[in-house]
Structures are given as C-alpha cells and as structure tokens.
C-alpha cells in the first residue's frame, strides 16, 4: 500500500514539477508568472482539444504547449515590456482563461449530450527497469510525461547553475543593472524565461486532461497552478527545493485521493483531504524561514537614459 501511495505521489507530482521548476527559472530572472493558473488551464484545454480532434496525444501536447506559450506571451508583453503589475495582470489572464476555454469549448463541441472523453496517456513500463522490485513500480511504470520530467530535472539544474545562460538568468533577477552593463538584454531574457514557463505550464495543464482524467472541465485545475507557484517559493527558488516540494505536494495529493477512496476512515470528512494541499501550503509558508528571494523579483527593469 505504501508503495502504491508513493508511486501515485510521483505521478501526481509530475505536473507540479513542470509548473514549479519553470516558475523557478522565470522567477530567478526576475518575473513572477502569476498567470500560471491560467496557463495550466489553457494547457489542459489545448491538450484535450488537440488529442480529441486529431486522435493523437502528441498533437494534444503540442497544442497545450502553444496555448501555454500564448498566455505567457501576453503576460510577458504586459508585465515586462509594458511594465504593469504582475499580480494584477496574472489575475486578469486567469479570469480570461476561464472564459476563453469555456467559450471555445462551446464553439468547437457545442453542448454535447454526454461528456467528451479521450484516451488518457497510457502507462509505458520501461523494459527491465520496471521489473526491479519496488523501484520499478515507483519510478518506471509511468506515462511519458513523468519520464520527460526525469530527463529535464538535471538538464534544467545544469542550465541554471552551470552555464552562462543560467548565470545571465540569475543575474537578471539579482542585479539587472549589472546584467545590462555586462551586455545582457534583460527584458528579452526575462521574456524568454516567461515563454519557457508558459510552455512547461501548458504541459503541466495537459497532464490533468490528457495524462490523467481523459476529459476537460473548466474547474479541473482548481488551484494546482497556484500550488506550483507556491512550491517555487517554498523551495527557496532552487531547482532541488522545487523538486522536493513537488514530491511533498504530490504525496499530499496522493494521500488525499487515497483517504477519499477509503471514505476518510469513516471519521474525517473528504473535504478535509481536498483542502489538505492548500492547508499544507499555508502551514509551510508560515513555517518557512530565511528565504533568499531574487533581489529584483517582481520589479520591472527600466533601462536608464
């Protein structure tokens, strides 16, 4: 049972991983992507639509990325180039995303008699590795997105801490004036990290529709984008912190699903488990100390002269 729970935790942490790690990259460059909830939602919708219309999850994932990038592009233009408030802009885009998905769901599919279904991504057991006792079940019996996550964790980590691109990103968030003097186009770099967050957030959203439930509703994200946002913060803007955070929240979600399935042991109400990840966020936010916030996080960079 514990193995089952942990395995499920890894599955449930996959989308949070995509969302929070890319949020770390964007925030290290100085931009909070507060449109993340809307990016997740549009990703979920794009994933569903692509898969449904073209009958192949690859197209769904592609469309999810495009949708995520589109939201991120609007967000980036308004916050980075127009220098408007990040929290406020994000809220506007999150509302717009709900309206947009509901509206175009109607445009494309009308009002269907029965809820539309797609085939969720299938689990691909990795030969040999999946046969290892315990570990095989835990790590190598997942859908493709989880494997992609395994591959990109080290890549993003390496990129952020060991390449000149990573240095440029981090210095844009810490000291954009100095980065500018060093010849980095701060705003363009920030815009690119936001687009990256949009792409990854789109995949994260698609995980819920294409990878998991095989359907789409406008309330299916239900704050998961915000949890990814919180994980970036709780993980102290570090890739390793975010990875640990996603696992903790994946576990919380897996536990919530498990407890609901056994009826809360007849004692606790289901709603408590539904609220559990959010309560956990509050508790961790309150307990967390000694943050190293990127010095220029949330502050638009205005070139002098």
């Amino acid at each position: 049972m514990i193995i089952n729970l942990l395995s499920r935790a890894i599955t449930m942490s996959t989308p949070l991983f995509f969302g929070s790690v890319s949020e770390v990259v964007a925030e290290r460059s100085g931009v909070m992507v507060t449109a993340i909830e809307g990016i997740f939602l549009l990703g979920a919708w794009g994933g569903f639509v692509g898969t449904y219309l073209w009958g192949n999850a690859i197209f769904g994932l592609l469309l999810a990325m495009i949708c995520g990038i589109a939201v991120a592009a609007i967000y980036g233009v308004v916050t980075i180039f127009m220098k408007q408030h990040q929290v406020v802009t994000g809220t506007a885009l999150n509302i717009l995303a709900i309206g947009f998905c509901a509206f175009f769901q109607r445009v494309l599919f009308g009002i269907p008699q029965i809820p539309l279904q797609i085939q969720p991504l299938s689990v691909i057991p990795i030969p040999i590795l999946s046969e290892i006792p315990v570990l095989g079940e835990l790590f190598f019996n997942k859908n493709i997105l989880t494997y992609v996550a395994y591959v990109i964790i080290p890549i993003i980590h390496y990129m952020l801490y060991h390449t000149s691109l990573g240095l440029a990103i981090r210095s844009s968030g810490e000291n954009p004036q100095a980065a500018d003097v060093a010849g980095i186009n701060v705003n363009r770099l920030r815009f690119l990290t936001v687009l990256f967050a949009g792409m990854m957030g789109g995949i994260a959203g698609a995980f819920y529709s294409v990878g998991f439930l095989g359907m789409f509703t406008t309330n299916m994200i239900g704050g998961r984008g915000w949890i990814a946002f919180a994980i970036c913060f709780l993980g102290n803007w570090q890739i390793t912190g975010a990875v640990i955070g996603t696992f903790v929240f994946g576990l919380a979600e897996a536990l919530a699903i498990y407890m609901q399935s056994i009826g809360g042991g007849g004692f606790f109400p289901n709603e408590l488990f539904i609220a559990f990840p959010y309560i956990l966020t509050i508790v961790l936010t309150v307990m967390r100390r000694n943050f190293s916030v990127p010095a220029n996080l949330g502050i638009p960079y205005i070139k002098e002269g």
Partner: protein
Amino acid sequence: MKRILNATWRDMVLTNFAAIVAGIVLSGALLLFLGIDPIFVFSTSIRAILTDGYTAADILLKATPLIMTALAFAFTYKANLFNIGAQGQFYMGAIAAIWLSLELQNRIPTALLLLIVLIVALAAGALIGGLIGFLKERFDSNEFLVSMMSSYVVLALMNYLLRTFLKETKGEYPQTDPIARSAWLPNLIKGTRLHYGFIISVLFAVLIWVLLYKTTLGFRIRAVGQNSRASALSGISPTKIYVIAFLISGALAGVAGFTEMNGVQHMLIQDFNPEMGAAGLGIAILANANPIGIIFASILYGALNVIGTQMGRIPGANVPSSIVSLMQGFVMLFVIMAYYARTKIASRREKNKRKREAALS
C-alpha cells in the same frame, strides 16, 4: 499645474473608456465564431435594460457585492499588501449570514436580525482576514500565498457544511434551506430585485474613503503602502498596520456575503458566485483603488454581467454564459494596458513641454 491635472484626468477617462469599449467589442467579435450576430444580441440586451426597470435594477444588484470585494482588495492594496483571498472571506460571511439567519428568523424583529447578521458576517470575514494579517505580522509569512490558499480552504469548509450541518431538510442537494421572508433585506425599489444591500455597499465605500483619506489610521495605512521602512522610522508600526488592514479588508468581503445571502439568494448553494474575489480585484484596479471610483466601476461590471445574462436569454441565439467572464477578462486586461498608455502619453507631454520651454528660452 492645474492644466496638467486636467490633462491627466482626461487621459484617464479616455484611455479607460477606450479599454472598456475594446474589451466589449473583442468579446462581441468572438460571438461570430458561434454564428451569432453580436450587434443584434448586444442591442437586444441593451434595449431590454433600457426599457425594463427590473433588468436595469439588476445592474445595481450585481454591483452590490462587487463593491465590497473590490473595497476589500483596494484597502490592503493601499498598504501595499495583497488580499487575494476575498473570495474565501466572502464565502465565510455568507456561511455566517445564512446560518445565523436560519437560527434567528421569526424569533426576533427583522431590523434587529439584519443588524446582528450584518455584524456577524462582517466579523466572520474579518476573522479570516485578520488571521492572514496575524500570520504576516507574527511570522512574516507571504500574505499573497496565504490569502490565496485560504480561499480554497474556506471553499472546502463550505462544501463540508453544506453536506452536513447546513444541508437542507429535504436532504437532497448540497444547499441550505431558504431563509424566511422576514429575514430578507427589504426591497429598495418595488417590482425589482434591488435591495437595501446596495445602500449598505455605497455607505461602506464612502466610509472607507473617509477612513483612508481623512483619518490618521488611513494616513498611516497609505504611508506604510508607500514606504514601509520610512514609516517605521517615523514611528508607525508596519506590522500593526498589516493586521488592521487585513482585518478591515476581510470584514468588507464578509459583508458581501451578507448582502448576497439576505438580499438576493436567500439560501446558500454550492459553488455560487465563484468569481466574486477576482472580479473585485479587477474593479479595484479599474478604479485605481479609489473607494468612490469603485462604486462606478462595480456598476460597470454589473452592467457587463446583466448584458451577458440578457444575451443568454434571447430565444434562439444561444449565447453561452462564458461571455461574461470573457468580457470581464478582456476589459480588465485592456484597462491594465491603459495604465501603460497613460504613462506613455504623460511622458510624451512632458517631453513636448520641455522642448517648448527650450525653444522659448
């Protein structure tokens, strides 16, 4: 100086007006995707508003709770704090209002009941808001995240209560029993749904304006918002201001729960008004967080809402209800862009002025 002030006023009106029109036109254009004639549905629904008092009054009815949630966001915003959890505080107020109304109805006079329910709903919202402020003061925890998450927790609490203690006596749906007529907020205009909650909201807006701009507390709140370090040096404790600002902010959102329960819905239904908090934020931004401006911006949002609902009622047109969030989202986005346009216009004006002065000397 006066001329510049007038010019910025004109900019503000013109750019915001352009933003609102652009938002409406763009969402209208999207209706073409559904093969709906936007001009027809817009003119039909606007005609309905102009000719039918009941529909027109609905605009103010919809504006009523929005004024309160917008004030809730604006109040903390003035202290440079973010209360993103107005939705949860609003639900908390609604839970308190409906529970107390069901308990007290037909036992005490209406006026007394409404007064008690108002105060308790206000306190319920203030409890959640105050808790967020307290965590910020005590543990320096990020109020943005905590308030955001608190909404989801309150939502779960509400669903739990609707499934158990507050569930209707028929026991069929997750909703409460309707409250008795004697516990309703009285009608403001006969033959419409508009109730005294609108007056309450407007009074609160005026009250908050006075509090912010005419009292020492308001001065301190704004001082902390502008520069918390400087105000700490001058003897204002920013942490104390955090708690007070969040208490009041939560209280304001809680009142919206009261006006919706006792004024409009008369019962608590699962997942009602899910965008009250976010729309309030949009309105506060549109009004530049000015309490009096919020009244008018809320009426605008109320109008968008009623226009959307009216379109949905046109027989044969099949306008989806998502048009409302599309309109509100686009208007909000364009209003944010209008801020940018204003800074551009202002800086160009400044440049021209300098050029003119240089030419004269």
